């Protein structure tokens, strides 16, 4: 016996009390937090040193490591030199006269992505002496031993207590140099004068395991490469699967390569970084990193809030540009109650000339935008009414 809909007229002016559920509504959510990626892809690691540890086949060609200066660290030892003095072989070119060093062993390989390379070279005539390490031309400024001096806290390189009988000696040296190298690259990257890179560094580097390095290039703008590990370092896939033939721990990283914008004008949009997945070879057999489609780099962030002034309900769309906070968010108001003839809701033109300073702290920024919107929504309401009137 429901009343017919035709008889339904406009409701009386008294408002109907809201319906209440007779039984308490239980929360149905299991508060499940999906484990979506955080938006940062894993960078591929800068080269993992692949150790081909000395065996009897190794013919050692080494010079004494001398800490007398940067040139010493980077000088390529002449073949057959008996002289422990590095000054004799000081060369800032640090070329790799491989043919001359046929008795050396390239111990520290780098991935083809990285421009760096290092050679660990033993002296065949003085095998008990610690190896020399030769770095690539881009790393002329890498002075790991100088860093120890500068730090002045008494730390010493493991070269200071080199024991040629210790089987783990070379590994320790490689690891030490690698850590120092990572710090060196971090400092280089911090010196880059690019607002976006600086922002990324300030927000990203606190996360475990993320590494950065410079990628200098002759024919295109320099780049900064971030490498974010995708797997926990303590997760060893090989251990999870019985009978797994992989001998080395597997890694997978996301590389994010930011071009450094040369111009200092903030109005030019920096181009999106390149994204790439890099993994160790065994893992590639399981997961093709070439085919993985990574989500496109978003060109700024958007957020929308719902607000009401009196009985006028409206949305405010915030478009936060990449140059935020130097550039202010662009605001667009949208009515919930007014629409054009084709049914699209009426929107304000984009607003980006409201009072703004990137030096305000966040709470200030929010408060001022709020105040601005409180006034502006009145203008917008009028704008909508006018638009409707014009349509009639």
């Amino acid at each position, binding site marked *: 016996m429901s009343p017919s809909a035709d008889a339904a007229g406009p409701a009386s002016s008294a408002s109907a009390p809201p319906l209440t559920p007779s039984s308490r509504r239980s929360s149905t959510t299991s508060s499940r937090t999906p484990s979506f990626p955080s938006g940062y892809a894993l960078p591929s690691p800068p080269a993992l040193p692949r150790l081909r540890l000395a065996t009897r086949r190794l013919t050692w060609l080494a010079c004494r490591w001398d800490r007398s200066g940067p040139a010493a660290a980077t000088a390529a030892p002449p073949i057959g030199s008996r002289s422990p003095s590095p000054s004799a072989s000081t060369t800032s070119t640090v070329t790799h006269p491989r043919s001359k060093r046929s008795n050396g062993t390239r111990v520290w390989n780098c991935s083809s992505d990285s421009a760096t390379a290092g050679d660990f070279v033993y002296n065949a005539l003085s095998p008990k002496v610690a190896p020399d390490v030769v770095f690539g031309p881009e790393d002329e400024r890498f002075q790991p031993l100088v860093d120890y001096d500068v730090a002045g806290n008494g730390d010493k390189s493991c070269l200071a207590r080199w024991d040629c009988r210790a089987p783990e000696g070379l590994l320790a040296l490689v690891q030490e140099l690698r850590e120092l190298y990572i710090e060196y690259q971090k400092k280089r990257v911090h010196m880059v004068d690019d607002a976006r890179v600086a922002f990324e560094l300030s927000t990203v580097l606190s996360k475990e395991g993320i590494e950065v390095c410079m990628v200098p290039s002759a024919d295109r703008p320099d780049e900064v490469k971030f490498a974010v590990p995708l797997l926990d370092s303590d997760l060893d896939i090989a251990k999870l699967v019985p009978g797994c033939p992989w001998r080395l721990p597997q890694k997978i990283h996301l590389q994010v390569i930011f071009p450094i914008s040369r111009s200092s004008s903030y109005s030019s949009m920096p181009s999106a970084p390149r994204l790439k997945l890099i993994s160790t070879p065994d893992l590639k057999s399981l997961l093709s990193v070439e085919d993985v489609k990574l989500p496109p780099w978003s060109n700024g962030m958007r957020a929308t809030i719902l607000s009401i002034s009196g009985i006028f309900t409206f949305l405010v769309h915030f478009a936060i540009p990449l140059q935020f906070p130097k550039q202010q968010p662009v605001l667009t108001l949208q009515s919930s109650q007014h*629409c054009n003839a084709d049914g699209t809701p009426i929107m304000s033109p984009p607003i980006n000339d409201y009072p703004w300073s990137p030096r305000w702290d966040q709470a200030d920024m929010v408060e001022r935008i709020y105040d601005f919107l409180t006034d502006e929504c009145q203008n917008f309401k009028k704008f909508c009414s006018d638009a409707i009137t014009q349509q009639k």
Partner: protein
Amino acid sequence: MATDAAAAPRYSLPPGRLPAEDILFCVDVDLEARAEMKSAAAAASSGSTSTASPQPAGAAGGAPAAGPRTAVRRMDAIKQALLLFVHSKLTMCPDHRFAFGSLGEAFSMVKKGFSSDAGSAMEAIHSLSASESRYAMADLTQLFMTANHEGTRAESQGRLLRVVLIYCRSSMKPQHQWPVKPKNFTLDIIYLHDKPSADNCPQMVYDALVDALDHVSQYEGYILETGQGLARVLFRQMCILLSHPLQRCIQDDLDIPKQVAKKTLAIEAAQNEDGTPVSSQQ
């Protein structure tokens, strides 16, 4: 989420990429969708939503025109609300997709597949029309079956499936034979009903809707109702449903939209009949 307690906690959104949504609308096309809205709504809203072709700006907007004497029916307001939702959601993120269906005795899709194309959404919305007679039942089983199937597909594509049910019957409880199953879609409900009277039972219908929502919804789904017949209330409720399920507080804590009115005007706002929450801070 921020509450109105004295020490309101700061709202913080953890960084993360939210999956894009596939949203399936199910619109009740029973006779009761022809009920008239309050005439005030006609003045507040504009244009026509019952014509399929866009009108040139400046035209009266087709039938029914938004003049003060012409009735706006529930279905007209629902269509405008759907257009509002689709355009707003696409403005927020162009990756969301939509599909439309109707509920008579059971559920049927307007056309297969989800699309983020605004034009095709508008076409589907305009094609909805309310029946001229009452249906004998309101069976949601097929709706849930479709949603469950689409939910699996959406999950495999890294998307989130939502169902938004717009229900209009004041005396007919919806029913379903959906078993207990793993939940893979989120259900929201908007319930438009007549004022409770001796001849109807919207409270019972509402309770049944709540039960159905609790039974199937994966994440927090909202059920919003109004018996006031005001189109702008429906539009406001649709805007609340714009929220992504993974960004929602539980409905008990829901208190948006908040008034931006300055403090002196807050008292005035509290006296309006909409029952919108009044913000006491700021």
